C-alpha cells in the first residue's frame, strides 16, 4: 500500500509520456502532455510539496499548454497529418541526444547510494515545508534579489513577445 499509489502514478505518467511522442495528431499529444503534468502534480503532493503541485498545474497545464494548443492550431495541421518516411538528420540527432540523456541518468542512479522510492509527503515536517507560507518566507527573506531579477526576466519576455507578434505601425 505504501508505494502502490506511487507505482500507479508512475505507470500512468510513463504511458502518457510515451503517447505524447507517438501520437500523430498534435492536439492529442498536447492532451497527453497535460495528463503528464497532472501526474507530476501528483508526485509533488506525495513529496509534500502541495504549493508546487498547484503551481505546476496553474502554470504548466493551465497556461503553457494552452499556448502550445494555440501554436498547434495556428499552424496548418493538414500538412502535418502525413509525416512519413525515414527520419532526417535532426531526428537522428534527437535520438542520439535521448540515448545520451538516458545513459547520464543511469550513470547517476547507479552511483547514488540508497535511492528510496517511498514518498515522504505524510511526514508532518516535510508536509509543513511544502506550504506556501514556508516557501514565501524563504523567497522573500533569503532570496529577494533572485526574485527581483526574475521580475526583470519576465519584463524581457513581455518585450520579446510584443516585438515578435506585433507588426510595426506605419
Amino acid at each position, binding site marked *: 500500500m505504501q508505494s502502490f499509489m506511487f507505482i500507479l502514478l508512475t505507470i500512468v505518467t510513463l504511458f502518457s509520456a510515451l503517447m505524447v511522442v507517438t501520437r500523430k*495528431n498534435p*492536439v*492529442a499529444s498536447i*492532451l497527453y502532455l*497535460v495528463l503528464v503534468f497532472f501526474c507530476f*502534480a501528483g508526485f509533488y503532493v506525495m513529496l509534500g510539496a*502541495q*504549493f508546487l*503541485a*498547484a*503551481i505546476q*498545474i*496553474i502554470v504548466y*497545464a*493551465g*497556461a503553457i*499548454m*494552452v499556448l502550445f*494548443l*494555440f501554436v498547434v*492550431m495556428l499552424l496548418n495541421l493538414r500538412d502535418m497529418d502525413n509525416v512519413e518516411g525515414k527520419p532526417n538528420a535532426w531526428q537522428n540527432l534527437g535520438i542520439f541526444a535521448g540515448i545520451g540523456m538516458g545513459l547520464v541518468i543511469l550513470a547517476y542512479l547507479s552511483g547514488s547510494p540508497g535511492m528510496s522510492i517511498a514518498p515522504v509527503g505524510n511526514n508532518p515536517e516535510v508536509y509543513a515545508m511544502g*506550504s*506556501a*507560507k514556508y516557501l514565501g518566507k524563504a523567497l522573500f527573506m533569503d532570496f529577494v534579489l533572485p526574485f527581483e531579477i526574475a521580475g526583470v526576466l519576465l519584463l524581457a519576455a513581455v518585450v520579446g513577445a510584443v516585438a515578435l507578434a506585433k507588426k510595426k505601425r506605419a
Partner: protein
Amino acid sequence: MTETIAFLIEKSIVAAGFFVVVLGVVAYATLGERKIAGYFQDRHGPNRAGPWGILQPIADGVKFFAKEDFIPDRADKILFVIAPTFTFMAAGFIMAVIPFGDRLTIFGREVLLQIADINIGILYILAISGLGAYGIVIGGWASNNKYSLMGGIRTSGQLISYEIAMGLAIVALLLDHGTMSLRTIVMQQSGAIWHWSVFTHPIGFMIFLVSAFAEASRMPFDLPEAENELVGGYHTEYSSMKFGLFQFGEYTHMTLASGLIITLYFGGWSIPFVPIPENPGILWGLLTFCAFWAKTLLMMFVFMWVRWTLPRFRYDQLMNLGWKKLIPLGIFNIVLTAGLLLVFQSMGLTN
C-alpha cells in the same frame, strides 16, 4: 487501520452526498433559469411537466438519454467524446475544497462538512478551473466545424484573460487572511456581519465577481456560444448527453462559482452574530449547511438576473475590459490593501 477505513468511508459518503446535492441544485438551476427568464419577459416559463413545471429537469434528463448519440463523420472521434467530460469534470472537481458547512457529530464521530480542507484550497480551485478551457477548445476543434472552432478559440482567449484578474483579486484577499485554507477563511469571517470580506475588500469583490461571470461564460460574457453569430458555438455539433454534459458543466461551474464567491466574500457557511459552538451537534451542522446554500442560491439568482438584464459584449470590448481595466485595477487594489494593512499594523490594530 480501522481508523483509516472509517476515514475512507466517511469521506466517500461526504463526497458522494455533496455531489448528489450539487447535481440536484444544478438540475433545478436549469429550471430556475427558465422560470426567471419567463418572468423577466412576462411569460410563464416551463409549466407543463408537473405542477409549476417542477418535473421539467427530470423530463430533460430523460430526453438527453433518449436522444441519438452520434459523432459527425468528419470529427476527430476520440477527442470529440473526451471534450464534454473534460468540461464537466473540471467544473465538478472544484467541489472538493468548497466548505459546505461546519462540523457535525453523528454516531459519535465528528464529520467535517467539507470534502478536503487542504492548505492550498484557493490555488486548487484556480488550477482546476484553469483546465476548464481545454474541454471547450478541444470540443470546438474536434467538431471540425467553423462555428465550433471559433467558439472554442474565443473561449480560451476569454478564460485566460480573466484568470489573471481573478488571481489578482485573490492575492489582495490573501494579504488579509494570510491563509489559503478555505475553512480558515470562513472562520475568520464569522461573528459580526462586517467581518465579511465584501465589506473589507469592495474593489477586490467587484473584480472577482466580474471575472467569475467571465470564467463561467455567463451572459454579458457568453461569447463562446453567441448564437446570433456562431449558431451554438463550441457545441454546435453536439447532441444527446454529450451536449448535456457541456450544459451540466456550465451550470455546475455557475453553482460552485457562486459557492466560492459566498465562501470568499460573504462568510461562507457562517451565520452572522452566531458564535461557533465548541461541540457541534447535528443541528448546528445542518444549520450551517442551509446557511451556505441559502446564500449560494441568492448569488445564483444574481447570476441569472444579470443574464436576462444585460446585453452581450463585443469581443474587443471584452478583451479591453479584462486587460485594460480589471488588471490595472487589480494591481492598484493589491497596493492599496497592502498599504492599508501596513498602516493598520503600525497603529497596532489587527483589522
